[in-house]
């Protein structure tokens, strides 16, 4: 298990290197660090001097290594628009996005497991058919449409829920603006979380159902029935534990992808997170910020996947005991 964990982490680092390389490539070709530093009202001669001083005339690889060194120390460059280090900008926006993804993940995991299991165990029951029918609608409806429908029903017509912004936030640990601790903050989270989860939830339900149905047909489940043990134990211990393995692998990737889906959700709900920041940085040609977003989201993705892989190892005795996979 130790060797397995080390291997997963090493793989994660490798992926991060590739992402940073691509990110740096974009920045190197399209970005203009001089403009980021001094703005546009500087003469070409001064510009050339600054370029030389910043080492922008060095070979690509030398610059990339310098970029990596700085990045490891938490320096990803300066934002042209905000006139601040990009890490500061991102750190200020990240809590909004992470809390949104967290709530959406809770919805996805909390609902897909019971619904998926139910639909697998009782495939013929009316409620299962409703779940499966609903999930098809859910998958095929674009996020922005779901979001707009939610806003129309719950904000415009019923007036129950706020349609934009984060509401009241509280700063915790000195840097984290949290909306989870106030009633208004939570109320603002409801619709964006639902909208964000609306694609993943049906996918997860269908994934869990189909994996579970396959496991229920297996010999070891049939054997468990033949041993005369209680149905609950056959379903939740014998079948579900085996269902979890493939679900963890696929599901981890999907939850990571959700970070990317926040761009749409945040734009519709005017959610001041990294996603809307990214769209703005693109329109403002704020290259450093854009690239940093890609690198940071890549990092989140890699971390989530590494953790998911390690959890997989913990659930699967073949990995846990022998380190094989």
């Amino acid at each position, binding site marked *: 298990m130790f060797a397995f964990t080390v291997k997963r982490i090493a793989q994660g680092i490798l992926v991060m290197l590739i992402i940073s390389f691509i990110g740096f490539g974009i920045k190197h070709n399209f970005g203009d660090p001089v403009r980021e530093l001094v703005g546009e009202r500087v003469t070409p001669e001064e510009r050339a001097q600054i370029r030389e001083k910043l080492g922008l005339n060095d070979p690509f690889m030398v610059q990339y290594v310098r970029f990596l060194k700085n990045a490891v120390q938490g320096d990803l460059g300066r934002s042209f628009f905000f006139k601040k280090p990009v890490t500061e900008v991102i750190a200020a926006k990240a809590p909004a996005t992470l809390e949104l993804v967290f709530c959406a993940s809770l919805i996805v995991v909390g609902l897909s497991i019971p619904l998926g299991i139910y639909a697998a165990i009782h495939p013929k029951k009316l409620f299962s058919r409703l779940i499966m029918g609903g999930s098809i609608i859910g998958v095929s409806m674009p996020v922005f449409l779901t979001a707009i429908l939610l806003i129309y029903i719950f904000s415009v017509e019923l007036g129950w829920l706020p349609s934009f912004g984060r509401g009241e936030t509280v700063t915790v640990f000195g840097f984290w603006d949290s909306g989870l601790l106030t009633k208004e903050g939570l109320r603002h989270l409801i619709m964006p979380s639902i909208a964000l989860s609306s694609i993943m939830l049906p996918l997860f339900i269908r994934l869990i159902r189909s994996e579970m149905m396959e496991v229920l047909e*297996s*010999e*070891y*489940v*049939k*054997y*468990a*029935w*033949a*041993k*005369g*043990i*209680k149905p609950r*134990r056959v379903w939740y*211990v*014998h079948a579900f*534990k*085996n269902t979890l*393995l493939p679900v963890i692998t696929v599901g981890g990737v999907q939850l990571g992808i959700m970070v990317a889906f926040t761009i749409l959700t945040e734009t519709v709900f005017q959610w001041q997170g990294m996603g809307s920041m990214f769209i703005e940085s693109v329109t403002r040609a704020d290259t450093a910020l854009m690239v940093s977003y890609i690198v940071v989201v890549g990092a989140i993705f890699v971390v989530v996947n590494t953790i998911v892989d390690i959890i997989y190892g913990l*659930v*699967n*005795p*073949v990995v846990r*005991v*022998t380190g094989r996979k």
Partner: protein
Amino acid sequence: MSELLKIKNLNVDFALRERTLRAINDVSISIDKGERLGVVGESGAGKSVLGFSIINLISKPGYIDSGQIVFKGEDISKYSYDRMRTIRGNQISMIFQDPMMTLNPVLSIGEQMRETVFAHMNVSKAKANEICVEKLKKVYIPSPEKRLNQYPHEFSGGMRQRIVIAISLLTNPDLIIADEPTTALDVTIQAEIMDLLLELCKTDNMGLMLITHDLSVVSQVTQRIAVMYAGTIVELGDTATVAHKPQHPYTVGLLGALPQRAGSEKRLNQIPGVMPGLAKIPAGCPFSDRCSLVGDICREKRPQLLEKTNGIRVACHFVE
């Protein structure tokens, strides 16, 4: 000897989309207490379906259409689900074909053994562990206490089948149904497992229904043999007679199909054709389209399983 299990006129159907097919056709058979019965036939004959129908665990869309399964004097085929659960894995245990598939890969051996104990006995965990260790010793698993915490992938195929046998012994059942228990194993291990099963049945006076497609396996272990073909029993009698002086043309063919002693170059399959699928079983005698003795009556009338002159029951119009 007293009767343990009596199957009477059992019919099992599979309700498929287009039509309903009969997989077990009017089968009657019995097992006495402590008796070992072999059920032999080619793959697809209905042996597994027969075995599973005893504990009412036929895979969907199969169901018992009619007939009785009398176990210790009670017809268990009409038991409620919860009542049936007190029989399954308790008084009647099953051993499946492939030990690589029957044990759950993510649960330890201990968990898979204890759950069976807890399902049928009201005991503490310590007591349950004690029972598990005792049964693992019976099937000659070395250092059983340590083995309880291990997972299936840490055992060889033969060891896994021993563990499955140990699980089947946990509740001291009256009957074990073993469905091709050695088919998936290495040839070298097959005899070992068979000997173990025979030894355990003898010492504990357990009934055994041994399902196999290999006549040579049953003839060493069981006291009686039932030969199945296309969902019916075509020959039934004591092992010595059926194995050495078979009457039904199908059994004769099966015996001929056995690998001969080393050196002889006989062809393996001596029965022409293959067993028909459930939808294509001929009217009259189910074996008629492959039988060398076939006559007009065979195509019209299904032969009854009747006792013949040597005391064996045979379903054939031409056996006296």
